[in-house]
C-alpha cells in the first residue's frame, strides 16, 4: 500500500429555525398515567463534582453525565450501541471517505470545525477526547457550506464512526473568546435539550429543559444533580427519597435488595456493562515475561469461588479482551481453570523450586516474590488482592500488595515501573483493543503498558480496525481473542454486574446493551415522572 489511506468525512448541517410544532401537554387523567407526561424534576446522583462544563475538556464520567444533557452529540448510540443520527442527520461511507449530513439549529459546520480544532490542539490538553480524533487531518478537513463539512482522517479505521459520539459541538462565537481552558468551567452554551440554571461547586447542578430545542423534546422539566461521593451516603439518601437513582455495591444489593419495604418504592436493577477487571502483567519483567509463568499464576485464582461467595453469582468470569455481550467475543475460548497443583508443576518445570526450604519457591538464589499495585481505597481490588495473595502463598509465592493513590499508580504503570497491577477497563462500544495490545502503542503513545508484543497479534489488531464489514471483523477479533487468552498479557478476572437502585416514580428507565442507563438515545432523555409523583418540584421553586 502506498502511503496513508485517506479518510474523508463530509458533514451537512442545515440551519433550522426552532420549531414548536408539538402540541401542548394535556392535563393527565388516571388513564393517561401510563403514557409519558411532560414536567417534573429528577434528582440524580453524581459520584463526584464535575471538573468542567466545557465538553472538550471533559475529564470524568461525571462531566460526561452532565454534558449529555447540555449537548447533543454528532452521533448517538441506540440501545444496541449502533450509531444513529444525533446532531448529524445522516452520513455515508465510501472506500476512502464518509459523508455526514446533519441538521441542527444555529449550529454551523464552522462550529464543528472549530470544535475539532480545539480537540486536537495540544494547547487544549483535552485529556479524554483527543485520542478519539488523533488521526484527524486538518489539510483535508474543510467547511463546504454552513450545513456541510468534510472531515478528513490520515488513516481509515472502522472505530472512527463511534468516536463521533464524543464530539459535542460548541459554538465558535462564544468559545473563541476568552481563555478556553478556564472561562468555560462554570458556564456553557450547548445545542442540547437542557440548559444550565445553576452550578454550586461541590454540591449540585441544576438543568432546565430548553423550550426551543430543535430535536425531540425530553419529558422532564428539570434535572438536579447532587454530588455525593460516598456510596453508603448515597444509598441512605436513596432510602430517604432524596435522590432518584444511584449505583449500589454488590453487598448492599444482596443485603437490602430483597427488603419488601424498600422494594415498594425502589426498583433494583442489575445488568452487565462494558467493563472488566484484570491483572496487568509487565511483560518486560524478567520473571513475568514468560507466558507459561503468567498462565501458572492465573491458575491460582479461584474465580468460581469468588463469584459464588463474594458476588453471589452477580459476576462473570472473563477470559479475554471482549465481554460476552460484545459481537467480537469468542465463545470457544476457555476460562483458565483454578488448579494450584498444576500451577506448581508448571513452575517447577520452569526451574522454580524451594531449594532452601524457606517455603518460598526460588531460582538461581532468588525467591519468587512479586509486587502488585492496587488503587488505595478501591472496593474491588483490595479483597481480590488479598485472596490472590493467600492463594499464591500456599504454593510458595510471595505477593506484596502495594496500595497507591490512583494518580501515582497510573504514573508508575505508564512508566513500566511495576510488576503487576490490578486494574479495570471501561470499554468503548466499538471493541477495537488496538491501543491496549498493539506493539506500536507502548506508553506514552498508547495504553499498551503491559508492553505486550506479538507480531501475530499486531497483524490481527491492524486487520480488525481497518475492516468495515462487521462479519469479517468478528472473525478477526475471535482469532485475536483466542491468541490473547493464550498469551495472557493480562489475566482477565471478572466482569462484575452493575447494580442500581432507581426510584419507582421515574418511568421508562431502560438499559442499553452494555452501556448502562445513560448516554445512549433515548436513555435518560426518555425518562418521565407521573404528575402525581413530582415530589421534588415544590422545594426547588421555593429556594
Amino acid at each position, binding site marked *: 500500500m502506498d502511503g496513508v489511506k485517506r479518510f474523508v468525512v463530509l458533514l451537512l448541517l442545515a440551519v433550522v429555525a426552532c420549531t414548536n410544532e408539538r402540541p401542548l401537554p394535556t392535563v393527565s387523567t388516571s388513564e393517561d398515567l401510563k403514557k409519558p407526561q411532560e414536567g417534573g424534576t429528577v434528582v440524580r446522583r453524581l459520584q463526584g463534582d464535575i471538573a468542567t462544563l466545557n465538553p472538550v475538556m471533559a475529564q470524568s464520567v461525571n462531566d460526561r453525565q452532565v454534558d449529555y444533557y447540555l449537548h447533543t452529540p454528532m452521533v448517538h448510540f441506540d440501545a444496541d450501541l449502533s450509531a444513529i443520527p444525533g446532531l448529524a442527520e445522516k452520513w455515508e461511507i465510501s472506500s476512502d471517505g464518509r459523508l455526514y449530513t446533519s441538521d441542527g439549529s444555529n449550529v454551523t459546520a464552522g462550529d464543528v470545525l472549530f470544535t475539532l480544532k480545539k480537540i486536537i490542539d495540544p494547547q487544549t490538553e483535552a485529556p479524554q477526547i483527543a485520542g478519539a480524533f488523533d488521526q484527524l487531518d486538518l489539510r483535508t478537513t474543510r467547511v463546504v457550506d454552513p450545513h456541510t463539512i468534510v472531515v478528513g482522517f490520515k488513516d481509515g479505521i472502522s472505530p472512527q464512526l463511534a468516536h463521533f459520539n464524543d464530539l459535542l459541538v460548541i459554538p465558535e462565537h462564544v468559545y473563541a473568546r476568552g481563555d478556553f481552558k478556564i472561562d468555560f468551567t462554570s458556564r456553557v452554551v450547548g445545542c442540547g435539550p437542557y440548559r444550565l440554571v445553576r452550578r454550586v461547586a461541590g454540591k449540585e447542578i441544576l438543568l432546565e429543559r430548553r423550550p426551543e430545542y430543535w430535536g425531540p423534546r425530553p419529558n422532564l422539566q428539570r434535572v438536579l444533580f447532587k454530588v455525593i461521593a460516598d456510596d453508603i451516603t448515597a444509598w441512605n439518601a436513596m432510602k430517604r427519597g432524596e435522590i432518584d437513582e444511584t449505583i449500589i455495591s454488590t453487598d448492599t444489593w444482596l443485603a*437490602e435488595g430483597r427488603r419488601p419495604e424498600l422494594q415498594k418504592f425502589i426498583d433494583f436493577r442489575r445488568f452487565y456493562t462494558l467493563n472488566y477487571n484484570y491483572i496487568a502483567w509487565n511483560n518486560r519483567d524478567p520473571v513475568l515475561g514468560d507466558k507459561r509463568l503468567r498462565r501458572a499464576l492465573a491458575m491460582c485464582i479461584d474465580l468460581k469461588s469468588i463469584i459464588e461467595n463474594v458476588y453471589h453469582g452477580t459476576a462473570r468470569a472473563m477470559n479475554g479482551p471482549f465481554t460476552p455481550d460484545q459481537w467480537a467475543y469468542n465463545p470457544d475460548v476457555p476460562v483458565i481453570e483454578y488448579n494450584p497443583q498444576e500451577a506448581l508443576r508448571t513452575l517447577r518445570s520452569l526451574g522454580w523450586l524451594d531449594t532452601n526450604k524457606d517455603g518460598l519457591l526460588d531460582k538461581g538464589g532468588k525467591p519468587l516474590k512479586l509486587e502488585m499495585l492496587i488503587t*488505595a481505597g478501591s472496593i474491588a481490588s*483490595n479483597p481480590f488482592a488479598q*485472596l490472590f495473595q*493467600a492463594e499464591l502463598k500456599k504454593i510458595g509465592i510471595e505477593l506484596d500488595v502495594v496500595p497507591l493513590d490512583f494518580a501515582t499508580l497510573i504514573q508508575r504503570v505508564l512508566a513500566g515501573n511495576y510488576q503487576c497491577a490490578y486494574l479495570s477497563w471501561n470499554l468503548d462500544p466499538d471493541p477495537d483493543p488496538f491501543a491496549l495490545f498493539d506493539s506500536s502503542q507502548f506508553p506514552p503513545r498508547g495504553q499498551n503498558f503491559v508492553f505486550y508484543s506479538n507480531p501475530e497479534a499486531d497483524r490481527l489488531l491492524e486487520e480488525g480496525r481497518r475492516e468495515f464489514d462487521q462479519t469479517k471483523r468478528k472473525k478477526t477479533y475471535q482469532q485475536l481473542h483466542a491468541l490473547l487468552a493464550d498469551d495472557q498479557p493480562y489475566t482477565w478476572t471478572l466482569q462484575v454486574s452493575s447494580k442500581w437502585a432507581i426510584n419507582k416514580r421515574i418511568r421508562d428507565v431502560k438499559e442499553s446493551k452494555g452501556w448502562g442507563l445513560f448516554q445512549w438515545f433515548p436513555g435518560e432523555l426518555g425518562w418521565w415522572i407521573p404528575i402525581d409523583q413530582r415530589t421534588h418540584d415544590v422545594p426547588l421553586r421555593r429556594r
Partner: protein
Amino acid sequence: MKRDSVSAMTWRRFQRSKLALGALAYVVVVALIALIAPMITVDPNAVDIASRLRPPDHTHRLGTDDLGRDVLARVIHGARVSLTVGLTATLISLLIGSFLGAIAGYYGGAADWLVSRLIEIVLCFPFLLLVLGIVALFRPSFITIMIALGLTSWTTEARFVRGEFLRIRDMEFAQAARASGARDARIIFRHLLPNAIAPVLVSASFGVASAILIESALSFLGMGVPPPTPTWGNILYSAEQHLEYAWWLAVFPGVAIFLTVAAFNIIGDRVRDALDPRSES
C-alpha cells in the same frame, strides 16, 4: 541528704487515681496479649471466603470479615501493630524533639532561631496531610508510617524541652557543672536533660494515643500498613463497606482503639497532675 526522688513521688501521687491505675493495667495487659498473640489465636490471615461476614458465634467469637478471616485473631494481632507504631513513633519524636529542643534552649541565639523556625514550618502543615504525603511519596509500610509519624510529631516535645532548658540552663547546678569544666554535651545530656524530661513524658503519653489514632486513620484511608497485616484501622476500613449488616467488623476494633487511646490519655493526664507541684499534695 535524704529526699524522695521526683519519680518516686510522682509514682506515689499517680497511684492515688484508681482510674489511672486501671488504665495502666489495661495497657500492660494489652501489651502482654500482643506479645503472645501468635500463641493464643488462629492465623489472622487465613482466608476462607465461603464463611465471609459471619456474625460472632462459637467458632469465630467476634465473627469474620469480608474474606472470612477471624476478627478476634485480627483484633489481637492488630494490637501488635497499633502499639508498636504508637510507641516507636513516639520514641522517634521524643529523640528528635528532645535533641532539637535542648540545642535551641541551651544555646539560644541563632540555634534557637533556626529550631524555632523549623518547628513553625512543620506546624504549618496540617498534620494528617503531611503524614499522608510522606507515606504516599514512599510506599505505605510499617516502617514508613512509624518514621512519618515520628518525623512530623516531634514539635511538641521540642517546644517543651526548649522551654524547660530556658528555665534551668542558668540554675546553680548548671552553673556548677559549667564551672567544673564540663563540656556542653555533658551539661546538656547529663545535667539538664534529665531535669527537663518530665513534662515531655506527659506529652509522649498523649503522643502514643495520637499515633495510634493516626495509624488507624491512615489504614482507614487505605494508606496504612499494607494487607494482609491486620491493624485496627484496616479492620475498620474493611468494615465501612459492610456497616449496615456486619456491625461486629466496626464495633470490636473501634472499641479496641477507643479503650487504648483513652488509656494512654488518662495515664498522660494523671502523670501531668502528679508532676505538678501545685496540685494537691
